[in-house]
């Protein structure tokens, strides 16, 4: 293994084992690594930190276990709920299936997949123009995209539902189609801004070299810029997915009848159905939870770095 490197910014604690690999050395916190000066030498503070971490886990993560255990419990109510199911059964999922939960999930997946694809394409194209071209009105266009963030669905819901019923010029009725949910999600100011910031950092020399080889605009974007933007695309993808999956009002107002609902909106139908118990509602909640959980766990590293980057760049 490589010899331990002395890092002046991070003085090693006296009891740091020397000679172990550098990674292990790096994970040993020094006294000034954190604002509170945590370290993992057994002490009162150390015990306190473990206790607080357990409380944080119990408050923020453990409740999710009740969703799963409730979904697997025959007829959960109050006391029969716990973090682990008593006698597990898949009956709730069967009943939820009879109530069309898989169709709702299908709606959701089509909307999330199509919406995300459209959003990535649209935002990438716009970001490319904003980052790699100069044109009149650039600042204005940037401001317009920023304004899309300030015009959330909640604020324009009522007129938007009228527009979805009768799109101007084309006179299309998008209600009851997935397009009614997908199209309004296409231009997302956050993705445009983040991708623009990222594309600006690509050195001009790379672009100039490609231009000299006679690369056109679309190939430039596809073969030169995009491969360099993979981290930013990952962030835009995972944040976009979570944003689309979390949509509630838009699928509600874009639907013609309840069969058009997404799985998250359909939970309210399950809940108001007097013939199904809360176990079935929780089975639906599990089905609505799992896709976003998978995306999060697969891409959580880029998600967290993306939130951090988006935040620090503002």
């Amino acid at each position: 293994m490589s010899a331990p490197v002395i890092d002046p910014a991070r003085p090693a604690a006296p009891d740091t084992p020397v000679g172990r690999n550098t990674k292990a050395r790096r994970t040993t916190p020094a006294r000034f690594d954190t604002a509170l000066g945590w370290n993992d030498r057994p002490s009162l503070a150390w015990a306190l930190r473990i206790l607080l971490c357990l409380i944080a886990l119990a408050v923020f993560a453990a409740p999710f276990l009740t969703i799963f255990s409730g979904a697997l419990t025959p007829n959960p109510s109050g006391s029969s709920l716990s973090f682990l199911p008593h006698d597990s059964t898949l009956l709730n999922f069967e009943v939820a299936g009879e109530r069309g939960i898989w169709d709702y999930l299908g709606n959701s997946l089509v909307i999330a997949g199509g919406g995300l694809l459209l959003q990535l394409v649209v935002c990438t194209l716009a970001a490319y123009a904003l980052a790699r071209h100069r044109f009149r009105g650039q600042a204005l266009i940037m401001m317009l995209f920023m304004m899309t963030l300030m015009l959330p669905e909640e604020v324009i819901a009522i007129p938007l539902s009228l527009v979805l019923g009768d799109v101007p010029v084309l006179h299309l009725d998008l209600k009851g189609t997935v397009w009614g949910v997908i199209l309004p999600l296409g231009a997302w100011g956050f993705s445009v801004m983040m991708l623009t910031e990222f594309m600006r950092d690509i050195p001009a020399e790379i672009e100039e070299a490609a231009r000299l080889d006679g690369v056109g605009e679309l190939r430039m974007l596809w073969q030169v810029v995009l491969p360099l933007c993979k981290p930013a695309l990952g962030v835009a993808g995972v944040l976009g997915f979570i944003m689309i999956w979390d949509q509630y009002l838009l699928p509600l107002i874009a639907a013609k009848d309840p069969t058009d609902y997404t799985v998250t909106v359909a939970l309210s139908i399950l809940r108001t159905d007097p013939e199904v118990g809360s176990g079935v509602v929780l089975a639906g909640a599990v089905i609505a939870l799992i896709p976003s959980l998978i995306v999060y766990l697969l891409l959580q590293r880029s998600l967290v770095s993306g939130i951090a980057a988006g935040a620090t760049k503002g």
Partner: protein
Amino acid sequence: MTATVTTPAARRGRVFGVLGKKAVVPWLFLAPGLLLALVFKFWPMAKGIWLSFFDVRPFLGDQWIGLDNYTRVLTDHRFQDAIGHTLVLGIGQSLGAILLGFVLALLLEGQARSLKIIRTAVFLPAVTATAVVGELWRLMYYPTSDGLLNSGLHLLGLGPVQFLDNPDIALYSTMAMGIWIWAPYNMVILLAGLAGVDRSLYEAAAMDGVSLWQRLRHVTLPAIRPALMIVLTLATIRGLRVFTEVYVLTGGGPAGSTDVWMTRAYTLGFTRNDIGGASAASVVLLCVTLLLTVTVNHLRKRGEAR
């Protein structure tokens, strides 16, 4: 900033052809985004502003009534109550989530693998769809003594609390859920801020023999000011347009005690079919949101310039 691609020589060589093409290309790339934003964001916004001056009557034709919708909405006592609820919920939820997010960030700051795993788990509420979170909290707030939270209170000898059915408590129950959703999100941003703090400042502070509290107050807090401002900006924009949290948890009930501005506008527009009134309510919210965003941004810029 933006990289110009053409070299001066090339620009001189092909002035007209290139200028024409160069001027069109960016607009071709911008077109899809601008078109979608225009049709599904700005057109509805304009239409909403327009409709807010009309008595909207399907099949009978709309009738211009000037500011009547606005006076009606602003003098309606249910809307006035909703303003109060929106402010209490927005401010309480935002400050609570920032404070808890800061505590979480201080607790979970560090490089160790175990900390990363805990952070991943703690972040779960922020990535879960609000509708699912609503179901989860309805379960935790189960009103009988064998409900999850109530059984915990029972151990402490406290009677079952009607978290969502008691008009005096329901708003605070909703606030607790909002804090739970947004605290992990704030935690991540504040962690990024904490990671950027100059470690030598901590050492210098320790050398001067200051207490932990003083170090937090005089070193950490000023250093993470930009991150705090961002968290605050996001919270301001979110706070006013709170809808889904309330809608999925209580639907505005009981007895309108959790009705916020947007749930009120939604009820007016979609269940009472008063499109004009609902549009006026939306426009009011839009104006306040824009005003607040601009103000906060202005303060932030001024703070950074200093």
